[in-house]
């Protein structure tokens, strides 16, 4: 490689290295703000030594605890518990839930922290995992019986 090309290659690598370092440091500094949501244990135990305060608007992401979904018989009010590894946080919500919402499903809710472990949500989004399989396979592997909505009985 002739010296002029070598010089250009060197200058270019220097520019890119410096910018990569700058972006890296920026992302590192913003680290906790880039996370889309708090997990339930982060809400109860704090994240990087900071506990969210009641009245704070935040997003929470976790699994819906099986058996914890309570629907109000006459209104759209619904409450359920979210967990990740241990502690549970209660979410209260008024409105329609996404199709994918079910017990054991990961969801992300946006709302205001009412007390240490209660959130009043105004938006509930469903999160799905990266596994895709036909219903028959899911039944065999995971023991999940999928029923089409039109075949399901009324609750």
């Amino acid at each position, binding site marked *: 490689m002739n010296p002029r090309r070598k010089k250009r290659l060197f200058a*270019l690598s220097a520019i890119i290295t410096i910018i990569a370092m700058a972006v890296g440091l920026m992302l590192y500094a913003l680290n906790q703000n880039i996370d889309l949501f708090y997990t339930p244990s982060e809400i109860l135990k704090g994240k990087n030594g900071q506990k969210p305060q009641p009245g704070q608007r935040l997003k929470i992401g976790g699994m819906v605890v099986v058996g914890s979904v309570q629907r109000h018989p006459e209104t759209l009010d619904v409450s359920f518990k979210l967990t990740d590894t241990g502690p549970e946080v209660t979410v209260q919500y008024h409105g329609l839930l996404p199709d994918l919402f079910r017990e054991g499903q990961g969801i992300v809710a946006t709302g205001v922290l009412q007390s240490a472990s209660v959130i009043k949500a105004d938006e509930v989004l469903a999160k799905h995992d990266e596994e895709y399989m036909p219903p028959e396979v899911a039944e065999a592997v995971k023991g999940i019986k999928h029923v089409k909505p039109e075949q399901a009985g009324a609750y």
Partner: protein
Amino acid sequence: MWKWLHPYAKTERLYQLSSTLLPWFSIAALLLLISGCVWGLMFAPADYQQGDAARIMYIHVPSAILSMSTYAAMAIAALIGIVWQIRTADMAVAAIAPTGAMVTFVALFTGAAWGKPMWGTWWVWDARLTSELILLFMYLGVIALYNAFEDKQQAGRAAGILALVGVINLPIIHYSVEWWNTLHQGASITKLSKPSIDPAMLWPLLINLLGFACLIASLSLAALKNEIIRREKHRPWVQQLVSDI
């Protein structure tokens, strides 16, 4: 070692090569995309959780993966153009950028259309979606910068440096779902372990991935041919070409 590449620094030889390759990539793209889409959209099984809505992945996943690969290809061309100062490499950058922008837009659009029924929202500012949007802006920036200069040699250098700086975004997009909490799920195919997609759904997806790659190649080649003609219109061989038609 790279001697066989040297003839393609000449615009005329590159134009001939593009003309030879273009029909093959176009035919391959057409066949692969038709078979992949028919198989994926009509015959592949529905997902156990998402039902038929998951079928949009046969468009979304290839376009999202290839939006990043296309950027990498553009950046390699930019590197060659800047370090070795080969004009045809700059032309390749200018040709690949609009194709890449289009593919990125398709990925974002199909992602939004998939997000609405499944997640419950068109858009959320999580790390994966935001970094993919930045990728679209990088493509648009490269296009804008290239067209901003009257002197195409300067244009190629400026756009090339921007394209190379944007490479930093690629690992961020790929690892965003691992580094941060996101609404977007983790990788299903582009990981070292076994794909977490059932084989019955994986095959049409891979066919479409290859089909999209051929489509991107043929669109870029067509754009490259146009760019060569546009920049070399005063050369004798181009005028010969025009008078032959």
